[in-house]
């Protein structure tokens, strides 16, 4: 574990020196949070009656669940930037061999590389979700003088606590597998981008009347539980698969 942390610290230091990666890591969630807060700011300003507001937020438009789901994209998008640089970048910059000859086990090396994607992603995800939550509540107070709807609700809290780490881990594990097959960082990011598609499909669920983060009816509770279990299963399966492929001898022959 100690050596995994040493590798993680080194990679984070490297990432911090790259404006392209570090900038994108902050810009993506910051932009999303900014757009969400501006949208809600305008919405609260043009709808003076909180009773009308509720039907717009949760009714046909499903604006609030839609934005909530968009925050689930963060843990899927950010690791593709970091993991591509951390895994494939070592191959491209021809630094990986020095790491492979060092006295660290394959598992420590893999863990170090996973942590470097996991920790900043979780940090930035929760930081900007925190800004989003506080922002919406401040906007309510400013426009209506009171909190007119409880935000976040239990579904969103559970989603953040369970789905964000799981989605992040699944994405990183997929990136580990991709990184062994590709030769370029851009190639890795592009293939990694495909990972986003199943998550984006979640965003269309509210249009079908299936808001799985609104735990107000048994069907949604069932869906939430089912999807959480599927994520767990995927995370475990990809974990074993990435452990199987992440071997020194596999990596060295691909350089």
């Amino acid at each position, binding site marked *: 574990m100690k050596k995994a942390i040493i590798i993680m610290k080194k990679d984070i230091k490297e990432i911090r*020196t790259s404006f392209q990666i570090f900038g994108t890591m902050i810009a993506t969630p910051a932009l999303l949070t900014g757009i969400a807060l501006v949208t809600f700011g305008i919405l609260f300003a043009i709808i003076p009656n909180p009773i009308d507001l509720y039907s717009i937020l949760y009714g046909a438009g499903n604006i609030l669940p839609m934005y909530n789901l968009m925050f689930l994209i963060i843990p899927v998008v950010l690791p593709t930037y970091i993991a591509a640089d951390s895994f494939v970048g070592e191959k491209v910059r021809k630094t990986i061999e020095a790491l492979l000859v060092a*006295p660290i086990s394959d598992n420590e090396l893999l863990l170090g590389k996973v942590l470097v994607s996991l920790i900043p992603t979780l940090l930035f995800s929760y930081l900007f979700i925190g800004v989003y939550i506080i922002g919406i509540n401040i906007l309510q107070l400013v426009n209506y003088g009171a909190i007119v709807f409880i935000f976040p609700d239990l579904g969103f809290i559970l989603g953040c606590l369970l789905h964000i780490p799981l989605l992040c881990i699944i994405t990183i594990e997929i990136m580990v597998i991709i990184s062994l097959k590709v030769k370029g960082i851009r190639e890795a990011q592009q293939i990694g981008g495909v990972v986003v598609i199943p998550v984006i499909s979640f965003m269309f669920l509210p249009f079908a009347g299936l808001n799985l983060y609104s735990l107000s009816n048994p069907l949604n509770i069932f869906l939430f539980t089912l999807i959480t279990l599927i994520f767990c299963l995927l995370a475990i399966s990809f974990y074993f698969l990435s452990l199987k492929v992440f071997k020194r*001898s596999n990596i060295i022959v691909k350089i």
Partner: protein
Amino acid sequence: MIEIKGLSKNFKNIKALDNISLTVNEGEVFGFLGPNGAGKTTTIRILSCILKPDAGTALLDNYDIHEEPMKIRKLIGVLTENPCIYERLSGRYNLMFFGKLYDVPEDQIKQRVDELLTMFDLQDRSNDKSGTYSKGMKKKLAISRTMIHNPKIIFLDEPTTGLDPKASKDLRDYIKKLSIKRKITIFLSTHNLTEAEYLCDKIAVINKGKIIAIGRPNELSRMLWSGDRVEITLINDYKDKGISQSEIHDMISSIDGVNECIVNDNKIHLSLESAEKVNPIIIKKLISSGIDIVQAKIEGHSLEDIYLSLIKEESDKK
């Protein structure tokens, strides 16, 4: 210190290593020569425990590569063909990072890093991003990285590739110093024959995954050629004395034990069965013919001659 026993490795249909065996003693500088794609890097990667052989094994300081790869990684330092340094980070950070990975005690890392930075003349630029260093500086940093944990065995894969002559010489001198003063075993993979000739106690020539010769440079020379080469330098006034080059050639060629004689102005190049026996006869004969001699020099076969002959011999066989 290093004992390789029947190592073989295939990459799909390509035989990268074909049953190679050799021994390197403690404190020896062992040259591993061969053309590109001969199997040099594959051997180093197997010995560094990052690639598994299909057959055979190797012992490094009595640790088996199959049984105790982690112990082996701790006792070796590997300078790969590419410097493998993190160019976005400073030279100092690079060394600190590898020091920690190699379990250099926390209270000694800083001192060790400073020592290496001073030794390689990198102290002034140690806090600059290593991407801004010259090729020579990057190579020096890479060697410092290899040395950070005081390894017992060092693998050097083409260490002077891309370096200017001054930096190459400095590096060769340092490698020599390491083997003499610190008794570090050095496994040097190269196709730079001058470098190998200067540094190596023992040499193995590998071609197409097979070891085609192994031994000390003079042993290899004797294995390939019987006899000695001699160069005699004459005072260039023999023509004034009415002696022609062909007369000198015929005079020397008629002596027993002379295999080959080439006269070129004031130089005579000879291939003799034994310099010790035949050379005095030649000198006496030249002097008695009125030809004055500046010097007579016994020439060994250069490593280049040995290497090229071995590689040619091997391809002729096929």
